[in-house]
Structures are given as C-alpha cells and as structure tokens.
C-alpha cells in the first residue's frame, strides 16, 4: 500500500504511451493522450494524501482537523477542465488534416509532404 498507487500511475502512463506509439488512427491517439493525462491527476492526488485525514473543507469540522493537501487538489482541478479544451483543439487539427489529406493514419501522414 505504500507504493501501490504510484505503480498504478506508472502502468497507466506506460499503456497510454503504448497506445500512442502503435496507433493507426489519429482519434485513437488523442484518446490515449487523454489516458496519459489522467495518470498525472492520480499522481498529483496520491502525493498529497494523508492517511486518516479528511477533505480540506472546514464547513462542518473544526479547523484543527488533519486534512489532505489542498494545493495539489487546486492544481488537479484546473488541470482537468483546461486539458479538455486543449483536447478539443487537437481534435480540430485532426479534422482539418483529414479534410486536407484524406487519411487519418499517422504513419501515412508522416510521409506526406506539404
């Protein structure tokens, strides 16, 4: 339990990278990129966790209660929403590439010129 979440993070990262490298379709590559991004969210939250603590919201628990780290949660929170918009931008690039070259295979797209 000491290192199990980080091993899962490594596994998700590895399998996402495998999907990106051996993909034959641009949209599949973008979905694997989403998976790789999600591994970083798990890593961020795993680093800030305190055993036996509560969420850092002191609406109904006294202020001195031990709580998990709020800074990494703030990072992960804005991260999730912003990377969805960046994924939409990547998808629009894929659409225009398909319109221009007629194919969505990254290995064929690499050999096109101009």
């Amino acid at each position, binding site marked *: 339990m000491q290192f199990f979440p980080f091993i899962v993070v490594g596994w998700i990262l590895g399998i996402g990278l495998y999907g990106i490298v051996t993909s034959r379709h641009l949209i599949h590559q973008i979905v694997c990129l989403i998976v790789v991004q999600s591994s970083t969210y798990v890593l961020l939250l795993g680093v800030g966790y305190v055993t036996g603590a509560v969420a850092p919201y002191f609406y109904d628990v006294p202020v001195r209660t031990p709580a998990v780290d*709020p800074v990494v949660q703030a990072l992960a*929170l804005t991260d999730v929403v912003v990377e969805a918009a960046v994924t939409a*931008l990547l998808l629009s690039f894929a659409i225009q590439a398909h319109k221009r070259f007629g194919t969505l295979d990254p*290995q064929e797209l690499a050999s096109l010129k101009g």
Partner: protein
Amino acid sequence: MTPTQRRWVFLAGVAGLVAFYLWGLLGLPGFGNYPGPYGFVINRVAVAQTNATGVVSAVNFDYRGFDTVGEEFILFAAAAGVATVLRRLRGERERPAVDEAADRNVPPTSGAVRMVALLFTGPLVVVGWWLASHAQANPSGGFQGGVILATTFILIYLSGEFLVFKRFSPVDLTDAVEAVGAAGFAAVGVSAVAMGLPYLQDFLPLGTVPGAVSSSGTIALISFFVGLEVAAAFTLIVGELLEQTLLIRQGDG
C-alpha cells in the same frame, strides 16, 4: 521503419523510462505519509485569513490566483484556436442553416427524450449558477459550474435541433460573454494593483461569517467570472464542432 521495429524501439525506451521511474519512486515518502509543511500550514491559516471554508478554492483564487489566471487564458486561447482552425476554408461551401432533413428519412426526436431534456434545463442552470458562485464554502467553483452551464446548451441541442441550439447561443453573444469573463478576472487583479496592492490581492472587505458568499472578498467575484468564461468557451467549442459536422460541405456538390 516497420511497425514491428517501431514496437521494439518503443519497448526499449519504455524499459529505460520504467527503470528511472522506479528509482525515483523509492525516494518518495510513501503513500499517505505526507511530510511537507506547506499543506498543513495552509490548512491551518486559510480560514482565518480569507474567511473561506473551502481551502481548495481559497488556494485557487487567492493564494495561487496568478496560476489560475494563466490556466484560464489557456482555456481562452484553446477556444479561440478551435474557432480559428475550423473556419471555412477555400473550396468549402457552407450550407444555409435551414431544415436540411427534407430529403433524408430522419426519425424525429422522441417525445420522452425531448421532455426529459427540457425538464432538466432549468435545474441545470440553477445548479451551475449555484456551484459557480459558492466556491468559498463547498467543493465547487467557477470551473465546475461553468462546465455544467455549458452542458445546458448541449442538452438543448440533444433535445431538439441544431437550429434551436444556434438560436439560444449565437456566436457573437457567446464570444462577448467569454471575453467579459476573461477580462473580468484580469480586471479584478488590475484593480488591486491600482489600489497599490500586489496583483490579485484580496481587497474587498472580509465579512464575519466564514463561508458565506459575501464574506470572502474577491474569491466569489473571481469564481463568478471564471464560471462565465468556462461556460462560454465550452459552448463555443461544441458549437463550432456542430457546425463543422452539420453545415460545412466540401466543394460545390
């Protein structure tokens, strides 16, 4: 390079990556044994200093507000990028936005779907608004509330036609709302500078009840602007993609 060669090169690379990752993993203090003092310090002083019981939102909009300005402008730039990349190119023709299904046998949206979707529209707007304006008390904030507000418009499209969606969210209005959101956030920071304080310092008077809307200074205001901007950005992105799928055609055929 054939795919099999590519796979072997990838496996060699990822073996090196895994080795370094495991070596770095051994230096971590383990899951749950959080050593650093920063988290504990923030938890201790945030409620007293900002009168916000939601410490994550206080960190997002007050302690690390400058990072949030940067992230929000990433969102702004991504929405502008989608609108730019998906513009009408030379050689494309935009079909007029009238009823295009006259020659296709499209089944109309069933009455049940339509009723459920329209029933949910009102509560979704209320929930999104509530989430966007109560960042300082609950696990909510501008980002989540904004996305929920954007899904309201998507629900309108799903329950009816694309034309109804266009009528409810014209591009000019959505652009203007997004600009107001982004500029409002930056303006709150600049008005702090105009008063002689550092950028994005909390300058509104803090109230007495921790966690109420009016008692956390600029956090509620910033969260409201962020909600506007995120909602408009996502509606813009989905609207652009819908236009691409439904209206734009290739050539003169």
